[in-house]
């Protein structure tokens, strides 16, 4: 298996190189440049040209690409044009915020969804099943930003239970109060995200469990007199986790993707908002760095999913 993993990682290298060239070209092909947005009567166009020049933005693309690669191997992803600070620092700051929120949301989603899926399957066709199915359909069909807006309005503004902007209180003392404040800030977006993101897991799990319920090994277990609780816990649950495990790798590496809607509504500085802003500002260094990171994460996600699958189901071996 280690051999396979190594081989997969080696294949990723040319993929990443091709990806980076594509991203680089596409970013440059967009109309405008990092300074188009800052047109104001006080900005002298000559100074803008000067800035373009010292940043090498007039060089041919292959030269710019080469410079970028050389810097990359020195651990330098360049400076953001918009934020005027190193891209690595900018992204790591945002990544921490995104990770907090995403981790919390994902854990919570599984906590809600797994029992719901099991329960629905156990009571297939009965009232609890119908309620859970309707719940998942409804949450699935309402656009998430609408939920966020309604959620922040009711729980943030009308009831005032939760903070409505940012990732941490501006007056929290360092140490424990800061951590508590951070948790408090991700509570509402996290719960909303979890409550309304259950559909995939619930539906997959439910249908798998229903399938498994009628399978031979379950019948055998039942006939042996294994208690119903243990049948579900040991036999059915583990087997039904397969499809969920299949995308678990993605959801782990996807933690860093950030949620554009949540970040916009809660003014929460994370990766999603950074990505969109960097595109509209033509902040090339940030765009290329982010796409590269996302690309690598996706490739790793596939690999991770395969590994998780092989752990969950020993019959599967990745070759």
């Amino acid at each position, binding site marked *: 298996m280690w051999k396979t993993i190594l081989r997969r990682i080696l294949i990723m290298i040319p993929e990443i190189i091709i990806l980076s060239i594509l991203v680089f070209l596409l970013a440059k092909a*967009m*109309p*405008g440049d990092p*300074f*188009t*947005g*800052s*047109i*104001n*009567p*006080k*900005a*002298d*166009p*000559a*100074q*803008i040209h*000067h*800035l373009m020049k*010292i940043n090498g933005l007039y060089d041919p693309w292959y030269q710019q690409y080469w410079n970028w690669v050389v810097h990359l191997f020195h651990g330098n992803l360049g*400076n953001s044009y*918009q*934020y*005027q*600070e*190193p891209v690595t*620092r900018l992204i790591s*700051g945002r990544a921490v915020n995104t990770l907090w929120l995403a981790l919390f949301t994902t854990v919570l989603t599984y906590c809600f969804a797994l029992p719901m899926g099991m329960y629905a399957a156990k009571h297939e*066709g009965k009232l609890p099943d119908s309620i859970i*199915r*309707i719940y998942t359909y*409804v949450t699935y*069909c*309402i656009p998430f930003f*609408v939920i966020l*807006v*309604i959620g*922040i*309005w009711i729980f*943030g*503004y*009308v009831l*005032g239970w939760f903070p*409505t*902007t*940012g*990732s*941490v*209180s*501006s*007056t929290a003392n360092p140490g424990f109060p800061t951590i508590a404040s951070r948790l408090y800030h991700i509570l509402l977006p996290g719960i909303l995200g979890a409550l309304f993101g259950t559909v995939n897991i619930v539906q997959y799990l439910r249908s798998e469990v229903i399938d498994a319920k009628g399978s031979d090994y379950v019948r055998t277990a039942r006939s042996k007199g294994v208690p119903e609780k243990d049948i579900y816990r040991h036999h059915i649950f583990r087997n039904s986790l397969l499809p969920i495990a299949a995308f678990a790798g993605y959801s782990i590496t996807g933690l860093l993707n950030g949620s554009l809607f949540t970040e*916009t*509504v809660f*003014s*929460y*500085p994370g990766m999603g*908002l950074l990505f969109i*802003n960097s595109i*509209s500002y*033509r902040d090339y260094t940030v765009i290329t760095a982010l796409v590269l990171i996302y690309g690598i994460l996706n490739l790793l996600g596939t690999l991770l999913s395969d590994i998780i699958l092989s752990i969950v189901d020993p019959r599967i071996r990745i070759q």
Partner: protein
Amino acid sequence: MVKTKHKLIVAAVTFLAALTLAGCSNNSSSSSNSAVKFSTNYKNSDATDKSATKNGTLKLALVNNSPFQGITDPILGSNASDAMAFAPGNLNNLFKYDKNYKIVDGGLANQKLDRKAKTATITLRSNAKWSNGSDVTAKDIEYSYEVLANKKSTTQQYSSDFENIVGLKEYRDGTANTISGITFPKGENGKVAVIQFKKMAPSMKFSGNSFIWGSVEPYEYIKDVPIAKLAASDQIRKNPIFTGPYKLDKVVEGESTSWSPNKYYYGKKAQIGHITINVVSMNNIDKALQSKKYDSVVPFAAASLGGTDYKNLKNLKGYTNIGKPSLSYSYFAFNLGHYDTKTGKNVSDSNKKMANKSLRQAMMYALNIDQVTKKFGNGVKQRANTILPPIFDKYYDKSAKGYTLNIKKANKLLDDAGYKKRNGSKWRSDPKGKPLTIHFGAMSSSSSTEAVYQDYLQQWHKIGLNVKFTNGKPMEMNSFYDTLQKPTQNKMDLWLGVWSMSSEPTESQLYGDTAPFNYGHFVTKKNTELINKMNDSTSWNDTTRAKTFKEWQNYMNSQAGVVGEQFSYAWQPVNNRVKGFNISPANDDSFYSNLTLTSSKMK
């Protein structure tokens, strides 16, 4: 059977959800009447509650859809959100000014201009200190020019106008280590700096002019950081020092800042215990104010809140609305020529599609901007009758007529100029009989703004002009400016843009013959003459200068090369527990130190 029932329930729930959503938005299209009259000063008659003020927190919202950049240095920062996030530190402003932005004595420094000797003497007050207790020195004044002009600086604020300072160009080119034209009669650590110019300009009397920089840099504090890396340094981002009434306690990257009184401040001591500033997105600001999360929004020269917000917030209980005319305005410009990159000059071409003045005027007479503004501006916008915003009280021409709806006149102008409908076509052709299609450039924006574009197109169609969007639809901002910045472009015949001005009213950088921002390339002898006159020796007399400005505004209107569309108010609600909230430019210098609270809870 069971399945159908389920579907029905799902459908019902969805329908209910949709209804709830519809209930959230208010789709009534009621419009308020004419422009609202705002006061710049909220005169709170309640008495200040001393303990509430001392122990309280003033909560301000920064209305922005994205995190702020976090650059506290006004030379290196390039956008409004940073300026707002760090406003309680006064952005290290040097000068106090009056309501016309004319520099007056009494700020961190006083300025004296000597026309004969061509110098500006800047004298810091004796007790001028940074928030870490160190003195503000003459070197701090000079260092701001080094940060501005250094070749490796990341600033976008540098302009060639600064090369009017003796020795500055040499410093920029690297042939000199210092700027020879800036001297210190009482030493670098003294309080006096003298700037030697090559020529003097009347605009130097005003804040925000392009010759004298209006803030100081803490030289001692940042001298070890290379200028190229200043914007990324901890001295600028994490632990910055200020000269204003409040000092920064904490900055949470991109989302909030918190402040407490700066005991070293030279002027009236700040009174409120804490000020916090939080980023709030445009979608949430109305709800946030309605639920009393904030006392107000950070006051700024440009509008943070628009017409829809005004409709939602105008009757908000416990709050009073104040406002002042914004420094920005929207305008129509016509494509009249090209920019000659060799000579660095704009050239008007008589063969351009829009070169005919009657055609331009007719297009402007066809629009009903008054009605549009009334409908969508909700009283916080008004039709721009000139291309100079009314905040420049003394220079703005109130009596200028501008262009109001007059279809009859528009048709007559076109008929007389030979733009006639020929061969039964519903569109007018040009005087030579060739079909005429006019391309209108506009930036993609909110749905209400795009509805306005549609109205304009419809009005032009009414007078028989075939006007179409460039590229068939409103353009993304980057492509829009990318097109305009080309020295010659034929994609847009006219466009709708916005300019936000500095606090000095000369618009030579927008409409001068050498200005690259003169995207319409409108150049006439008279225009150049008037623009030059705004800063020649006759304009040292304020009355004469004001007269020149008014003459220029009327001239620009008569030529219809660039025509104002809308002025807006920078307005904001203020909670009634706040006292001393006065957003007049004359109070900019001491705005934050004048604030107090009348109760510990919001009203």
